[in-house]
């Protein structure tokens, strides 16, 4: 077997394996009669490593053997393959946000009164973490409930210069 043929076989096996391959595993790819020696194997791996220079991946030795790895500097592009589809907000969340936007400053109890159902803490937390709403004060009634209002981050996200730019219900009815 020529060094080139050996190199090609090793490359193919390392590319197909989906796990690191030890030298022993690489040896076992060959029937005994044509099994390369350790030195031959290592020389082929070194040549393989060199041949990847300038390519999108590299041969790396890790704990359990050798594997091909996509180059780290390509992560910004490659990672987009796994980018999750953005989840969608629930109707409850959107209604809560809408009430805070259109009726601010507003307490949770007032939101619940209009919506007819409880507003989960999770929704308030999500909207707060997104920095779309914040507590701007407390109402002077028993329990001193927090007053929620939208933030400038909210305006920025929806590309509004002020709340006055929010569409009115009339716009919904006559598009």
């Amino acid at each position: 077997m020529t060094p080139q043929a050996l190199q090609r076989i090793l490359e193919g096996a390392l590319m197909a394996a989906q796990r690191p391959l030890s030298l022993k595993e690489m040896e076992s790819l060959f029937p005994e009669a044509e099994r390369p020696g350790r030195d031959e194997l290592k020389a082929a791996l070194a040549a393989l490593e060199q041949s990847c220079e300038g390519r999108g991946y590299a041969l790396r030795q890790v704990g359990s053997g050798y594997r091909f790895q996509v180059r780290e500097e390509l992560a910004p592009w490659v990672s987009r393959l796994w980018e999750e589809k953005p989840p969608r907000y629930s109707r409850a969340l959107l209604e809560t946000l809408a009430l805070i936007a259109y009726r601010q400053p507003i307490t949770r109890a007032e939101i619940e009164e209009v919506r007819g159902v409880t507003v989960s803490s999770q929704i308030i937390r999500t909207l707060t973490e997104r920095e779309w709403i914040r507590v701007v004060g407390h109402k002077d009634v028993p329990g001193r409930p927090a007053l929620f209002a939208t933030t400038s981050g909210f305006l920025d996200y929806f590309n509004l210069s002020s709340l006055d730019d929010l569409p009115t219900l009339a716009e919904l009815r006559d598009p």
Partner: protein
Amino acid sequence: MPAVPVARVRGEPLTWVPQDLYIPPDALEVILEAFEGPLDLLLYLIRRQNLDILDIPIAEITRQYIRYIELMRELQLELAAEYLVMAAMLAEIKSRMLLPRPAETEEEEDPRAELVRRLQEYERIRQAALDLDQLPRLERDIFQVAAQPPPMDQVRPLPQVELDELLRAFSQVLGRAEMFSHHQVQREPLSVRERMTRVLEALEGGRQVPFGALFTPEEGRRGVVVTFLAILELIKARMVDWVQAEVYAPIYLRPAGEMAQAEDGA
């Protein structure tokens, strides 16, 4: 002469083979089980004897076919009903072939035509299946390349919301609350509600702010009116308190209930 088993079928010695069946004995069971149905069996019989599919000697083939079925039954191989249907069809074709054909109906279709069509169609698909099996394929001839992905910061995109979704949500919730009225919408300019938020922000942290400091004269008359309405709303809704030490003294605004709390604590 002692009966020497010519094959073993399901472990049982088989001592006879139908005379006109020419099968390597040890392959018998394998062959019988391997038929994919009556068309497959018929094709086998035809091809084995190098017969022309377009001119099948129907009497002979029918005889052989029925012998096979009998053999399969004898060996208790599972016999699909389709085999019997085909036997009946062959018998029918055979009898129609025997009828003398009047001259004027020369145009009449050969009784075998339909069978021939089906055999040809099945043979094509049988070949196509073999070809498909020969194609290089994943797991056997082709291996997908897979390198270790680089270490990545997993970006979790946030849900996107469109402005009209927000408006629709608002209209739905109002509709449900039976508060949907054109009148109400016009009565409540958002600028006032926004200003309420701004005033509350100005008071944040329990600060006490002079009434006058909340106005921005540069905004003009309209801006001043909006702020004033906002403050009135806030006071009415008990969102802010206003305090005046004595008549004509400066008026201060502070977050609602701050003083009460401080007094409680004292």
